[in-house]
């Protein structure tokens, strides 16, 4: 039996030892996969702030109506992982408050014809073939994307048929990987998502995988290792992330390999887009005191209003 086709890695950065380092493992053959999720309510913990209500995804439990997982949605949703070639059915049961129809989308994937939406209490199933490896964002875009702003998003990763590679090229080989879902929260919106005047929307918490610094998780990688960073921008802002002390080789955008990969240390990920980069961790500290900072260069480095800094969309790459 193959392992589960997904891993739920809530509230922590994905850190996966490449399969090539694991003895006796070969790439799994394509299989049919069914993923069952609930879209429901939850809360997120923010530094210096009371828990903020969210809408999000969570793995479905025993109850068909998701009642057993109510108020446990996570930010971001569970990370979904498939193998290249898998035929996947993604079923989402809508357990949101009344009158919020979900609309499930994964930009970059081609779904078989069928309904996209589900009213509260209903389930929508969308089927696709994970034909191309890469980093994708899944989300519910209902209510004029208010649902996305509330937290209905997560990472969907299609693994290359070749283990230890992000894509089907040797240049995408990596030793460790980290997924960074970028987003932001305006607690005033989350408190009243149905009536909030979006013209006054002002994000005051900036998140990596649902957390603001200092709650963000450190990325662990050792000198000499190739670190695959999968950026997914689930937020509303074109986000520029700076990396100190090392280059990152930009090899793919929106799950497509670039014809000419290039090196950078500040990359802009458009809202709704994904980007894959590989950084080789240097030896030494490069004069940096807490590892290699990876942070929002647009100064979203505080929490709340008035803004308390340091905070926001920032983490560090450190040796294990």
């Amino acid at each position: 039996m193959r392992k589960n086709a997904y891993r739920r890695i809530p509230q922590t950065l994905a850190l996966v030892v490449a399969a090539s380092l694991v003895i006796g493992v070969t790439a799994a053959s394509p299989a049919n996969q069914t993923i069952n999720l609930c879209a429901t309510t939850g809360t997120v913990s923010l530094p210096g702030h009371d828990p903020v209500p969210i809408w999000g995804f969570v793995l479905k439990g025993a109850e068909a109506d998701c009642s057993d997982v109510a108020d446990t949605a996570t930010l971001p949703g569970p990370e979904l992982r498939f193998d290249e070639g898998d035929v996947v059915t993604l079923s989402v049961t809508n357990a949101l408050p009344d009158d919020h129809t979900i609309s499930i989308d994964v930009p970059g994937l081609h779904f078989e014809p069928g309904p996209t939406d589900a009213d509260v209490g209903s389930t929508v199933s969308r089927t696709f073939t994970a034909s191309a490896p890469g980093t994708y964002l899944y989300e519910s875009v209902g209510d004029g994307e208010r649902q996305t702003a509330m937290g209905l998003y997560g990472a969907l990763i299609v693994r290359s048929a070749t283990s230890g590679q992000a894509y089907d090229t040797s240049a995408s080989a990596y030793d460790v990987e980290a997924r960074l879902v970028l987003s932001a929260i305006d607690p005033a919106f989350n408190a009243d998502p149905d009536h909030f005047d979006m013209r006054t929307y002002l994000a005051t918490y900036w998140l990596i995988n649902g957390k603001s610094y200092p709650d963000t998780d450190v990325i662990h990688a050792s000198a000499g290792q190739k670190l695959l960073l999968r950026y997914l921008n689930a937020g509303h802002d074109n986000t520029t992330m700076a990396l100190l002390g090392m280059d990152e080789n930009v090899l793919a955008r929106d799950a497509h390999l670039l014809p000419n990969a290039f090196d950078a240390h500040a990359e802009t990920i458009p809202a709704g887009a994904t980007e894959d980069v590989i950084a080789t961790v240097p030896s030494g500290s490069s004069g940096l005191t807490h590892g290699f900072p990876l942070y929002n260069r647009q100064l979203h480095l505080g929490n709340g209003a008035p803004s308390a800094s340091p905070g926001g969309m920032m983490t560090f790459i450190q040796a294990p």
Partner: protein
Amino acid sequence: MTMLKRTGLLVTVAALLWAPATGQAAKTGMVCTPGGPTFNLVANTGDIETPDGNSVFLWSYANQSVNTGHFQAPGPVLCVNEGDTVTIHLHNGLDSHASAPNMVPENVSIVFPGQSQVDASGGSEGLFTREAAPGGDVTYTFVASRPGTYVYESGSDPSKQLEMGLYGALVVRPSSHADWAYGSATQFDPSREYLILLNELDPDLHHAVETGGLYDITKLHNRYFAVNGREFPDSVQDNGVSWLPNQPYGSLVRLQPYCNPSNMSDPLNPPPPACTPASPANTQPALIRMINVGDLNHPYHPHGNHLRQIAQDGRAFASGASSERFGETIGSGQTEDFLLTWTDQDFWNATTNQFPNGVALTDYRNLTFKDDNTFYSGSAYLGRKGTLPTGVVQQNVCGEWYFPWHSHALNEFANFDEGFGGMATLMRVDPGGGCYAFPSSTTIPGGVLKSGSYTDLGIDDTKSYQVNPKTTTRPNATTAGQTSITVASASGFPASGNYFIRIDNEVLQVTGGQGTTTWTVQRGQLGTTGAAHLSGAVITALANDWYAGFTSVPTGSQNLKVTYKGKNCANTTGTTCTLIASNLPQQTVKICNWTIAGATGCSTATSSGWVTLPAPQSQPVGSTDVSTTWTLPGSANAYIGTGSNKGQVRVLVHTQRWTASSPTPFSTWGNFMQLVYDAP
């Protein structure tokens, strides 16, 4: 100071060549701060001025070796060579803030995105790197291992300190190749290396820091958008202008059209006179080093030619991966490098390639902003000036083109929401080889107009400005030995100095009575024999003199070049040139040196102010057009009038035909005359 006054000063400054080795500030182009690879920087406080009359309190880095750390924004441009061990001592001078007593100083630091193996010592441990406490110091050292365009900036409390201005540019040049950005494919013209550093700021947040008030980055509302620390139109002022003492870096980009004189069939070459086999080669592109130190991603839009992006973040793109751009979003903290070659698309030319009839002249170069200021020349032809409406203040020097380069987020193309201003500068395209000037008048101090006017000298075509030697008559018969003769009129003959005349086949020299109708003459000159002449005989001068007047040549111009193209014909009437096969007239071209005797010195053909141009100082010119260009190196100020003659240049053509045994009539046909100069 008003915008009008500031921009008016654009035309009053002298051009200097870029001088990286000495650190001497060129008027335009990137300026490397003195020193290196060891720099002593200080973080200190100061104010910048904005074009709307505001001033904003900033924190920035300064170079201690420049006027003892005089405050400047942005920080000094640090230029080093690949392989250098770079050492930066940083002193935190934020403890000294007398002008802002309630300001709360902070630890400061520097991080170096794109550099590896930085060593930080001294100071104390901060979140990103080691920091200097107020009044304290910290030192960073690294080997500049890879060429490129980089940022250095504060790694302390960045959401405040980057807004406040603690950043600057770091340039690493390839070892042994200061004219390469990266590899050999990125060679550029080192006299055309430009920095475009973008940032924006919110004066309310700066005021909060200045007064010790609440600093809340979530209240950020950017009002000023700058290039190299200045908002437009300040951005197009020269480097180091005195009225922007804390904002030393201008961002005007100056180019000339591509010209490859060694291959005149190069399709990118503009037509003559912009590019001829004698033109200096201009085949290397300019290098544009663009940096975004702001907190917003800026869609930067260069008008005119496309830019070719060759690198991001100090890393050259792979071969073949560069791309042409006319709009490029540069992300916060990013750097991007571009090569830029100016080529004209249509080669419209007032002489050889005029706009077709019925085609509306393009007016996209009609760059008018507030108060009827314009950089437009009044003519769509490069190198030509036209007439503008009364009341329009024109900044154009000589028909050069200006193209705006600006953020296409148009709210950023403004100063405190007033357009246009803000994150913008200009690209100035000078005519090929320099600025041109064409005659705007002609005067004949010795001779008589045959046909044509000064406009015929402005275009190299079949039409010409034609002058005959002056003629008059002898009312009486002349004996062979007579040495005092009366003439019907002296008008058009030289009023002073000795000169030759011809009666029939005898040449006489006038040695007295010049300017009157009774002349003292010496007979039988230049190999001829004194002879008797009938009453009513025609007297012809053996030389003619005429000069062309040019106007609006700016003081401070350099390297004046004079081009004259013309011929001489044997006939003094008619429209067809009768060939002169032998005994060719001798041509001498002179320029007025206004410093000798002012306008008086260049009033007659023999006045003292006329200076013969450099070699060829005298040359035979027959009935085929001869084109000659003379260059006067260095300052052209002696040849440019001042006071009531401001901007005037006069060029005199003296033609004589007296060296042969059988003098015969001639006429001078001026086809084309122009000045070319390096404008200030």
